[in-house]
């Protein structure tokens, strides 16, 4: 069961986790929540741009890949776009499985792929100007964990 949402509105982490807690075969649910952090010179807001159409396709492909790699009962990806304030939630993933190993691995896999393969771009706006957030070499390197297998 894959659930993918791309939206400007906030989401309810507790309710999303509960959606995955169905039946009595799911022993483990892992969630990750990403939030807007402040920057050195005081963030006014973050503007999250995305590529409508491709975003949904990319998230679905990443989700299907996770479902094929681990025995998951379900997974959820919610990613916001638009204007976000410091401390706002940006996105979440949640994974459900019989055991903790699969749930943890799959959540981490989803995050590693979302960071570098989902078409979102972050712009940080502070009183001194604005900057597009650079992609990180560490994030690109993190993907290698999953391809060397």
């Amino acid at each position, binding site marked *: 069961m894959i659930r993918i949402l791309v939206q400007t509105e906030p989401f309810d982490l507790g309710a999303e986790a509960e959606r995955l807690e169905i039946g009595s075969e799911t022993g483990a649910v892992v969630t990750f929540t*990403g939030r807007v952090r402040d920057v050195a010179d005081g963030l006014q807001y973050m503007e999250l*741009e995305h*590529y409508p*159409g*491709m975003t949904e*396709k*990319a998230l679905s492909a990443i989700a299907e890949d996770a479902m094929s790699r681990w025995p998951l009962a379900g997974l959820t990806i919610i*990613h916001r776009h638009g204007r976000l304030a410091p401390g706002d939630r*940006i*996105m979440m993933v949640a994974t459900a499985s019989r055991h903790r190993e699969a749930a943890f691995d799959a959540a981490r896999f989803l*995050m590693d792929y*979302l*960071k*570098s*393969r*989902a*078409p*979102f*771009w*972050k*712009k940080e706006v502070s009183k001194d100007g604005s900057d*597009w*957030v*650079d*992609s990180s070499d560490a*994030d*690109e390197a993190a993907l290698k964990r999953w391809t060397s297998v």
Partner: protein
Amino acid sequence: MKVQVLYFAWLRERIGEGRETVETEAATIADLVEELRAREPRYALAFSDMKAVRAALDQELVPLDTRLNGAREVAFFPPMTGG
């Protein structure tokens, strides 16, 4: 051949628009970049460092040397920063 060309993030800002229809005879995405660059300085500026540019063909991430092959939509953007 007519193709929809999309720009995101600072590529969009440098070029000044997010989407346009381009008439092109380019064989590959890289050829299309050359044609655009030759048009106007704002394109030359946006495409000045191709190491910082990624492309998607019909909404699939692809290398720059990929052939257009009748694609309807080509998108240019910096490395993604999701999550």
